[in-house]
């Protein structure tokens, strides 16, 4: 459950203003035109950019916390893989992960044979929804 | 938009700069520009004073570079096509430039070694025992490195001459120097021994000293052995940044040419009448026979890192020549002519040089030049104008 109030973000001439927003559910799809503020909103929630206002994640206020303490992971569309690291290093990268998640992922994605290869050799990587 | 504006601004500034430059630059006429290299110590006298007067008078333009005399000679050996060369040690010309680059020179002025400083707290009063001031504990002295600059080995010679001057009454030249005034000699001699001697001030301060009574090498050893060892003697290139050295306290005193005091806005040790406080018997600025003979009583040998070789002491002689490959002989001759006759002599005199009233000619000078001079007197040791 994500609750946002009085969010204000200024990036150059662009201003994002959200007075009151409640988001809940397993998956949320955010749709908007180019330049409408989708990435700005996500980066504000993750703490990548400065914002004013309150952001609550499961009733915890996170807006004054540094990025690594917010429990919010963010991948952008273009920068989402560490190209200098192997498949194994990429999948093992998150500091907080549940036990056994790597083995699940490597098999689900069918990459067991290529786990020590550096990522750029792949034309694409299979994406899969996982719990 | 901002980038475009910045680019436009830069272009406008660039064009304006060129326009201003063209406007203030005097228009090129058919005037020939001759080039030369002169010793750094001549920067003020020749660069700032003589050349503008000469160009005004004759319309001849000169592009003169200034630097260490040996450095200039090496540049010529490496192919630099100067027309004129002027050296602070006349020996540079015969030893490095003859016969390939020239076959004559005119010796037109002398200079004197002096004790210089900037900071008023190091002031040396007229008549003071200056050898105490420069050799004292914690005082840092700068001199040129002999391999870079003639004033380096000339400083060594001056210091050694001072030693004989203040200790060796039995030397006939010393008695001449003191006008046979034993009483006055003894004042300085006593001070010398009290300072450098076995139970002297320096010894009691555990800062070198302890030299035998009447040791004429005491000052040399104190500076060029002891101070060098403890890091209180800086051997550097005093051509550049000497006032910076003195200003910043990297050195307290510098042993350099009297003319450098004007060049670089320094104070120097003087007599009450304003002349050099270092006697002409030791300051290497005289071409008077007896004084020149006295100069030869010491040699230029210095410590191993500061040693040009073992040459007898001699006066500081400035020599000039026209290099053989010049294309502008007439203009070059005009330059030398005016330098060694009253116009140049007056300017040199005002800048604390000692112009030689009838200059000395060495080798086969052009007729216009040779008629101005005389052969080098035999009593002047050849090494002071044939070797460096």
């Amino acid at each position, binding site marked *: 459950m994500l609750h946002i109030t009085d969010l204000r973000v200024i990036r150059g001439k662009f201003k994002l203003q959200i007075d009151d927003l409640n988001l809940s559910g397993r998956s949320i799809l955010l749709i908007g035109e180019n330049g409408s503020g989708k990435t700005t909103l996500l980066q504000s929630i*993750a*703490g*990548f950019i400065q914002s004013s206002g309150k952001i609550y994640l499961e009733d915890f206020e996170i807006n004054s916390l*540094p*990025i*690594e303490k*917010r429990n*919010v*992971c*963010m*991948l*952008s569309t273009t*920068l*989402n893989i*560490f*190209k*200098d690291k192997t498949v194994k290093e990429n999948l093992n*990268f*998150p*500091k*907080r992960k549940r036990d056994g998640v790597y083995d699940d992922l490597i098999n689900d994605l069918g990459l067991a044979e290529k786990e020590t290869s550096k990522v750029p050799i792949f034309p694409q990587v299979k994406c899969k929804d996982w719990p | 938009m901002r980038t475009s504006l910045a680019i436009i601004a830069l272009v406008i500034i660039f064009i304006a700069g060129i326009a201003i430059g063209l406007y203030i630059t005097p228009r090129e006429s058919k005037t020939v520009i001759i080039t030369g290299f002169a010793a750094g110590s001549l920067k003020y006298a020749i660069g700032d004073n003589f050349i503008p007067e000469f160009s005004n008078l004759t319309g001849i333009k000169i592009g003169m570079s200034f630097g*260490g005399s*040996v*450095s200039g000679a*090496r540049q010529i*050996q*490496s192919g630099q096509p100067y027309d004129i060369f002027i050296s602070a040690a006349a020996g540079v010309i015969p030893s490095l430039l003859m016969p390939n680059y020239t076959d004559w020179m005119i010796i037109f002025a002398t200079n004197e070694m002096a004790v210089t400083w900037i900071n008023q707290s190091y002031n040396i009063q007229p008549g003071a025992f200056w050898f105490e001031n420069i050799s004292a504990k914690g005082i840092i002295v700068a001199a040129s*490195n002999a*391999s*870079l600059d003639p004033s380096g080995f000339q400083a060594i010679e001056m210091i050694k001459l001072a030693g004989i001057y203040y200790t060796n009454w039995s030397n006939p030249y010393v008695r001449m120097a003191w006008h046979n005034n034993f009483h006055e000699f003894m004042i300085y001699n006593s001070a010398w021994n009290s300072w450098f001697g076995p139970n002297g001030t320096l010894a009691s301060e555990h800062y070198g000293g302890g030299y035998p009574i009447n040791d004429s090498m005491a000052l040399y050893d104190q500076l060029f052995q002891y101070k060098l*060892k403890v*890091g209180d003697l*800086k*051997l*550097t*290139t005093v051509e*550049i*940044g000497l006032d*910076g*050295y003195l*200003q*910043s*306290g*990297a050195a307290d005193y510098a042993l350099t040419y009297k003319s450098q005091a004007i060049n670089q806005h320094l104070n120097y040790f003087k007599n009450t009448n304003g002349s050099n406080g270092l006697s002409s018997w030791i300051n290497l600025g005289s071409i008077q026979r007896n004084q020149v003979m006295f100069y030869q009583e010491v040699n230029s040998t210095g410590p191993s*890192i500061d040693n040009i070789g073992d040459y007898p002491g001699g006066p500081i002689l400035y020599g000039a020549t026209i290099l053989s490959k010049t294309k502008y002989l007439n203009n070059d001759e005009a330059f030398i002519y005016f330098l060694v006759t009253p116009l140049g002599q007056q300017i040199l005199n005002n800048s604390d040089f000692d112009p030689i009233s009838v200059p000395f000619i060495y080798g086969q000078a052009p007729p216009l030049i040779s008629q101005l001079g005389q052969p080098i007197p035999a009593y002047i040791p050849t090494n002071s104008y044939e070797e460096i």
Partner: protein
Amino acid sequence: MKFDKLYYIFSIFVIIYLGIIVVPILRTLLFTSINGLVQDSKSGIIQSIELTYLMAFIVAIISVVFAIPYTYFISRSPHPFFKFVDSIIELPIMIPHTVVGIIMLLTFEPSMPVGSLISKIYPNYRFDDTFFAVIVTLFFLASAYSIRTIQVSYTKNAIEYENMARSFGYKPLEAFMLVSVPFMWRSILRGMALTWARSISEVGSMLIVAYYIFPSFTHLVGIFIYSQFIGNGLIPAAESSSILIITGLLTLLILKILEGKDASYY
């Protein structure tokens, strides 16, 4: 492999440029003989090169140690004041080198402002003709090369990657070390090489602050060759220059090999 017309047109520029760089170097090397080089190697040039290379290496390391945090800081400081500050670091490069030497004396000599502060901590402090004078002056002159080289490789994307890593739970330093530094090491090496090379060639300021290094009275190589030129003439100086060029070339080649193939990341 077929190239387009532009490739061949630009190759003319390359040939001219390389000619201007390579021809004088070749001339120096061919001006001397092998026998001359062997003789000159006993003149003290080898010791001077060793000392200079070591000093330059220390300066290069220190430059990189400052360049990395500087890059991190400036990249995250959008305020115009910091843009102004960033433009100042190239200033030392444009100051005439002998003037730099005088500036260093006026700042660090024991009787000068910074020097007197240092003297309070180290009573026997002295500045000119010391290792400290060499390091400080060379750092002043050459550090901008490291900073700019490393800055160029640390783009805006680097910050986003680090933020991504932080969102996975890593602290800022951990994110920087895990994500950015592995990709900066090539530019770090390049920056070090530039600073190192620039430090070796320095003469003007060294003539003022450290004509020799006390108490060994060793010259840095630029001063050594300059002294040789003045004292002994062109040929010994050219021979020493050739020895310097050969050793320098080998070192730069080794660095280039260590750098490996260039990979683009961001």
